[in-house]
């Protein structure tokens, strides 16, 4: 305790999220949280790394920015390369890429929900941290743990079937994909769908039923007005592969519709805060920091008018009922994730039932026809933007990436402050308080390793710092 009683709490490393980061909570004289900062501390400049490389290597190179969602980078990067070639890829290639992407969302959401966050829901946010993980969960609620493992495995197996073992980087290429889908692979994927569909449905039922228990968390986990941004189809439907950018406000009113994703620079501003490598973005017309917006599952479901699959559409209607405005609490990211899992399974079935999915024409060939290309996709965590410039020889000269966690940077910061103010008392610190601070970050499922393009595992620390700068508490697991 310092003399004037002001202290700072630092959570470092935040466990069960991807990447390396640190949270500092600054206390005032009364031991109340005054300010909170989310630092991302690792950095490896991937943008620089790509300069001078042939553009055709980019999808595979980009897939290496992240070990958790390589497929999302493959998609955004391949789309940026398609733009360089200025070709329309064969329709079947597009469908295959969609399935690939859906499988990725499925497995990534399953990881986030079941492996990283469900221990909080099932064992309690105040439960013993030693067993508050998937293994502890498997002992208490084996069926939930099994469901999570099965869903994730299903997604990963599809990725392997399409892309080859261990995500063969050459499958998704500029101009399409390198190999068509075989009948055997299609049938094998289809055969697994009824089981995972049932899991997705029952998990949603259970989660909705248990939401009552988390009233306090729902009220304080990043529950504040922001804009929401993401891609929707031309008809306003949920999409992961392509569409136009829509922006809505907290009241649920459309602010912008039909924005060209390639022109992101017109409406998305980027800012790097001195304490973090994370590039935070804002909606330009509203300026910084008023242009705060959220992306990802919560945003997508707030933005979408429909899903386009029967079960997910029912769930979406219910989701929209949660609040008359847009659904504002970041706690509902979890709920949104489960609905998206359901959608992914249903949508994959639709795509695989289409006989054209076996078409052998899956790649367009061309030389680069444009010196600049943008590729945008909805990754599990939100809108993912790849923007490349090449020279006459086809070598990369400039790269800009905006990653979901960057879009959510401002909102994550504000959410941490809100949670910390609500739950953390400097004079009687409990582990459960700090776990809530971490839990709100997990709600965003940030992938820090790729938002700073750093190489890292799930690490973060919380530090409590007094007004005079003395670190009085440190949490590191």
């Amino acid at each position, binding site marked *: 305790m310092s003399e004037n009683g002001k202290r700072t709490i630092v959570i470092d490393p935040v466990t069960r999220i991807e990447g390396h980061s640190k949270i500092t909570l600054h206390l005032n004289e009364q031991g109340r949280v005054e300010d909170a900062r989310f630092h991302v501390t690792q950095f490896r400049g991937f943008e620089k790394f790509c300069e*001078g*490389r*042939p553009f*055709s*290597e980019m*999808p*595979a*190179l980009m897939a*290496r920015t992240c070990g958790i969602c390589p497929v999302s980078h493959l998609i955004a990067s391949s789309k940026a390369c398609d733009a360089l070639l200025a070709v329309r890829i064969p329709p079947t290639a597009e469908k295959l890429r969609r399935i690939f992407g859906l499988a990725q969302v499925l497995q990534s959401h399953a990881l986030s929900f079941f492996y990283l966050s469900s221990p909080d829901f099932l064992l309690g946010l105040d439960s013993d941290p030693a067993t508050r993980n998937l293994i502890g969960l498997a002992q208490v609620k084996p069926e939930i743990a099994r469901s999570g493992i099965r869903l994730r495995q299903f997604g990963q197996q599809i990725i392997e079937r399409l892309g080859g073992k261990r995500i*063969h*980087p*050459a499958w998704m*290429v*500029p101009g399409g994909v*390198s190999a068509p889908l075989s009948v055997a692979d299609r049938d094998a994927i289809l055969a697994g769908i009824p089981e995972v569909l049932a899991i997705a449905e029952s998990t949603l039922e259970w989660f909705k039923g248990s939401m009552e228990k988390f009233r306090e968390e729902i009220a304080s986990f990043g529950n504040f007005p922001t804009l929401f941004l993401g891609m929707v189809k031309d008809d306003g439907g949920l999409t992961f592969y392509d569409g136009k950018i829509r922006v809505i406000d907290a009241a649920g009113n459309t602010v912008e519709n039909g924005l060209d994703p390639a022109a992101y620079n017109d409406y998305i501003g980027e800012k790097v805060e001195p304490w973090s490598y994370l590039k935070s973005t804002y909606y330009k017309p509203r300026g910084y920091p008023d242009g705060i917006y959220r992306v990802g599952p919560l945003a997508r479901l707030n933005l979408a008018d429909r899903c386009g699959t029967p079960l997910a559409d029912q769930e979406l209607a219910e989701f929209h009922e949660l609040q008359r405005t847009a659904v504002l609490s970041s706690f509902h990211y979890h709920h949104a994730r489960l609905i998206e899992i359901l959608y992914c399974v249903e949508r994959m079935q639709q795509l695989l039932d289409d006989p054209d999915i076996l078409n052998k024409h899956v790649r367009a*060939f061309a*030389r680069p026809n444009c010196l600049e290309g943008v590729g945008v996709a909805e990754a599990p965590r939100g809108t993912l933007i790849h923007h490349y410039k090449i020279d006459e*020889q*086809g*070598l990369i000269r400039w790269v800009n990436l905006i990653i979901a966690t960057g879009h959510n940077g401002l909102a994550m910061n504000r959410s941490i402050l809100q949670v910390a103010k609500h739950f953390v008392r400097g004079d009687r610190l409990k582990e459960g308080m700090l776990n809530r601070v971490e839990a709100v970050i997990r709600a965003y499922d940030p992938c820090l390793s790729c938002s700073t393009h750093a190489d890292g595992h799930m690490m973060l620390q919380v530090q409590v710092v007094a007004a005079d700068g003395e670190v009085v508490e440190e949490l590191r697991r």
Partner: protein
Amino acid sequence: MAKAANIKTLKIDGRDVSARQNETILEVARENGIFIPTLCTLKGLSNVGACRLCLVEVKGTARLQPACVTRVEEAMEVTTNSERLQGYRRAILELLFTERNHVCAVCVSNGHCELQSLAQKLEITHVHFAYRYPEAEVDASHERFIVDHNRCILCTRCVRVCEEIEGAHTWDVMGRGIDAKVITDLNEPWGSSQTCTGCGKCVHVCPTGALSEKGKSVAEMLKRRQFLPYLTQMREEDRS
């Protein structure tokens, strides 16, 4: 049928083998199914002994001999796989990896690279030397091909195939030691080379991803070399 006097008998790894008198140790070893690692040699091209991976021990000589250029001799006793040789070979490969930027995972030749597969075969899991991370250039000025100096191991197969088979002599080596690099014409961009016929032989004999076809994505660059022995044979018949 060769005359009896032209047949040599020798021992490789304790095995008695016979060879025609002009054969190299490497050729005889291969005929007998004895593995000697190589990178620079390629059937159909002359041998320069550049990579030193094929070094073997010959009884009675203190120096190690490159099997690709050393002719067999009567009663020679050759060891191809002693612990000492294994150590040297690993060191050579490790040095090749540190010398330039060989990032297999994102290389066009991933999975089809002689350097990579040799490293796997020799069970290299770590590199014990410091990486140099040089800033090597990529020249994509040619219509159809790319030279990526990051992946070049200076085996000079491109230089030899261009001179000996295509007859263009577009490729050559410039600089010495660590500064050595392959060049086109008088160190001009490949795309503005006056001599290059665009035949692509150099691309296909290149053991790594240093030479590749444009537009190939990671792991997509497959090399076809079946043409080489036929071409060599044809050229020789022409000359005679």
